[in-house]
């Protein structure tokens, strides 16, 4: 392990975090919320001191940086990001319990949107802003941001690839252009562009500026923290539709947007993952609309709510316009299914990812055919290109790890004595970075009822879900910490 290099990168990342607290600090100052100001100021000081100590301790690091360092670095930095990012909540006294503050900010950074705050509107503006902004930062990844603004480590070598791979979701992470830094820049440019567009559309519908910015952050990161107690339900139907569209947009692989800019329209529209993503979403909307016949007064309203909830759950955002916990069982079952499938690889969304599901299904189909016709040689293809066996193996391993994590966390949080539906949906909602689940953790309720142990388990789930399990899993492996 190259501890010094990992330490240096974490130090740099902390500086980024502290710098991003500045706008929140100013908002608190502007709104004269002095407890929040104190919280932010002290947190920033603490973070800067820790970052300074880290960079002092880790001077003169070697340049050796391999896949293991990349994974450990990402896993550790997200944990630390959460621990320190939760400080303003705790220090300002607005979330008095530290585990709760930790839960809330991890939920923010992992773009989950699961909250322990019963009355969101009681929080101060600066805290609300920081909560929503954590979605935006966590959506594309803090280390990717670090890659975009600095030549992290200064090397021209490929080690930065390990960081991108560990932090970006998807079975097969690649660069858009030869240079790592340029790739990260392009990703963030697209991200910022889409976010700004979202804000503009929201403002056009008459949403207050603060609400528009926070909602756009929540949408962009596919997070789901709202600034109102009833999430998006109180806004006009136009604003709800804007959210639906932008949630879907942020659930698309960002490579598609880059290809659109390059005018490679054919490649985009032939993309199997995108087709599956849109197809599943459309199918679910149709089924739920049919199932909800008579639930809402008009067909238009039914369609609007169905589309919003499908987009919100599938892209793992977790906004709500209605309490879908009251919906019929079939509709709820569809939503549970969507929770697992998730958004596209390479988007800001979570879940198992459409691309991965596609590969898993294809390799399942191959295995079935293999049983019937053992001599047949079959190659799994994606978008017409053969898929490397290693990637398929990876997808299958991921599937196993995914199921294992769900079962294990389900067992662990069952101690708190909630119903099976609550527990299962809580695990799915956290692990897939969605936010609201069903029953006691449904859209109109929150996670404050769980004990601290369950909260810690769910925090781990959120981190594992956002970072695609392995960076978190290897932190617990003794081989990781052995000498090479």
């Amino acid at each position: 392990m190259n501890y010094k290099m990992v330490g240096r990168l974490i130090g740099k990342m902390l500086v980024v975090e502290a710098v991003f607290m500045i706008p929140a600090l100013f908002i608190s100052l502007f709104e004269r919320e002095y407890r929040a100001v104190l919280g932010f100021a002290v947190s920033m000081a603490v973070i800067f001191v820790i970052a300074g100590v880290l960079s002092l301790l880790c001077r003169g690091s070697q340049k050796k940086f391999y896949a293991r360092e990349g994974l450990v670095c990402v896993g550790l930095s997200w944990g630390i990001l959460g621990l320190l990012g939760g400080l303003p909540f705790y220090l300002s006294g607005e979330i008095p319990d530290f585990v709760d503050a930790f839960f809330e900010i991890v939920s923010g950074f992992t773009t989950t949107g699961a909250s322990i705050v019963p009355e969101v509107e009681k929080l101060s503006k600066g805290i609300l802003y920081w909560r929503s902004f954590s979605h935006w930062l966590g959506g594309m990844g803090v280390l990717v941001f670090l890659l975009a603004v600095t030549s992290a480590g200064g090397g021209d070598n490929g080690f930065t690839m390990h960081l991108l791979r560990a932090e970006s979701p998807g079975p097969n992470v690649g660069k858009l252009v030869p240079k790592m830094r340029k790739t990260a820049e392009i990703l963030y440019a697209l991200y910022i562009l889409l976010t700004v567009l979202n804000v503009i559309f929201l403002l056009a519908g008459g949403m207050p500026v603060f609400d528009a910015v926070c909602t756009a952050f929540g949408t962009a990161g596919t997070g789901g923290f709202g600034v109102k107690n009833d999430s998006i339900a109180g806004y006009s139907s136009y604003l709800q539709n804007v959210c639906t569209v932008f949630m879907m947009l942020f659930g698309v692989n960002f490579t598609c947007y880059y290809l659109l800019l390059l005018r490679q329209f054919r490649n985009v529209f032939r993309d199997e993952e995108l087709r599956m993503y849109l197809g599943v979403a459309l199918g679910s909307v149709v089924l739920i609309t049919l199932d909800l016949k008579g639930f809402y007064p008009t067909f238009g309203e039914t369609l609007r709510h169905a589309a919003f909830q499908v987009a919100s759950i599938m892209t793992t955002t977790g906004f709500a316009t209605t309490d879908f916990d009251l919906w019929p069982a079939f509709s709820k079952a569809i939503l549970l299914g969507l929770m697992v499938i998730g958004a596209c690889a390479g988007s800001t969304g979570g879940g198992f990812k459409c691309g991965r599901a596609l590969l898993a299904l294809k390799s399942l189909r191959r295995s079935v055919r293999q049983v019937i016709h053992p001599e047949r040689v079959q190659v799994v293809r994606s978008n017409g290109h053969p898929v490397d066996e290693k990637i398929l193996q990876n997808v299958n391993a991921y599937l196993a790890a995914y199921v294992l994590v769900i079962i294990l966390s389900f067992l662990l949080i069952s101690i708190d004595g909630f119903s099976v539906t609550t527990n299962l949906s809580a695990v799915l909602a956290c692990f897939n970075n969605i936010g609201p689940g069903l029953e006691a953790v449904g859209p109109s309720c929150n996670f404050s009822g769980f004990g601290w142990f369950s909260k810690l388990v769910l925090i781990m789930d959120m981190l594992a879900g956002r970072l695609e399990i392995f960076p978190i899993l290897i932190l617990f492996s003794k081989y990781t910490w052995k000498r090479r």
Partner: protein
Amino acid sequence: MKIIISGDGKLGAALTRQLSAEGYDLTLIDANLKVLESSEERYDIMVVQGNCASMSVLEQAGVREADLLIAVTGADEINLLCCMTAHGMNPALHTIARVRNPEYTDQVYKMRDMFALSMAVNPEMQAAIEMERLLKYPGFLKRDTFAKGRVEIVELRINADSKLCNVALNDMNNIVKCQILICAVLRSGKAIAPDGNFVLREGDRIFVTAAARELATLLKNLEMITHKVKHAILCGGGRVSYYLAKQLHKSGINVKILERDPARCVQLATVLPEADIIQGDASSQFLLEKEGISDCDALVTLTGLDEFNMIISLYGTSCGVPQVITKLGRIDNSNILGELSIGSIISPKELCSNSIVRYVRAMNNQTGAAVSVHTIADGQAEAMEFRVDEAVRYRGVPLKQLHVKKNVLVACITKGATQEIPNGDSYFDTGDTVIIVTNGEKGIFQLNDIFEW
């Protein structure tokens, strides 16, 4: 600048290392996913798997936006086809192909336009030319040329009986009696930038800048072996041997080639009627003795195995062969090799990749980048050649008034056809060529970078 490299073999990897360190946008194409993955891990590049001569793969690699394509796969035919296809897709593209088969040499030269080649490289031929240059001036371990061949930096070893042994650099001029400059000394593995009081010791390897025409004088005044090489033994009958034998025959040197494979021997005997082709194992001391290793003037080891080459060369030095040249495929750990007495080391791969890198720099030269860069002193120092243009500051100002960075030495200034080893009164002006030596630390990309402010 966007560069595509087809073929991630030994040469491809060397090019990737050098060019990615210089910050170009690289895309690497190879059919083998394994090697691509390991390259992707080590360097900041993009990789594409597939056949580099196919349009769809080239398209994927972004050939339409690329500035240069370097085709260095194992097969000449694929390299040529790759360049033709790519050039067809993007007529503004520069192309470099490696063509190794001697049978193609002529047509590649004569039909360059048809093959759409900007440059063809042949590592074995380059190695042979380099070896011949060394054999012409026995005594030099390495020669790097600058300013279109008019200036050289040569490497010499100081032996116990050398006239320069235990001499301070201030007193050197009385011995060599010509204009030279010692720009670096390699002592027990470490490069030193010497000043006037520096005393040379036995075992030092010195790097001397001199005008090409002064080299003969230098050798004569140092009383180093100046007798011409007449008989050379080449161990191994590969492509380098073939090219070298041809070259040496032109300069009137008798060549003996030892080759193990009987069929290859017949081939060589057919194409090289003037050389002695001996069938036998070159690593056997008995055979070497029998073929007169003790009496020959030069031994060149060119078998396919680095280990064999090193051992045969060691044996050759111990037999007292005055000039030994060793071909090595890998010189990654050349600081170990410096300790061995295996004479000059030539790596075809390295020579070839250097010449391609030079081409790339020349392409990129609008910004005043170095025309050529040679690494000397086992990679611990770099000699760079710059052309002085309008953008260079302090033109016409004597060097003694300039504040040049501490680790930079101005080694030579070429004005038109005259070369000048600079002293404090020297200056450079527009159109001159300046050679500087640095200790290899990064940060010097154009001539203006050598000034402190």
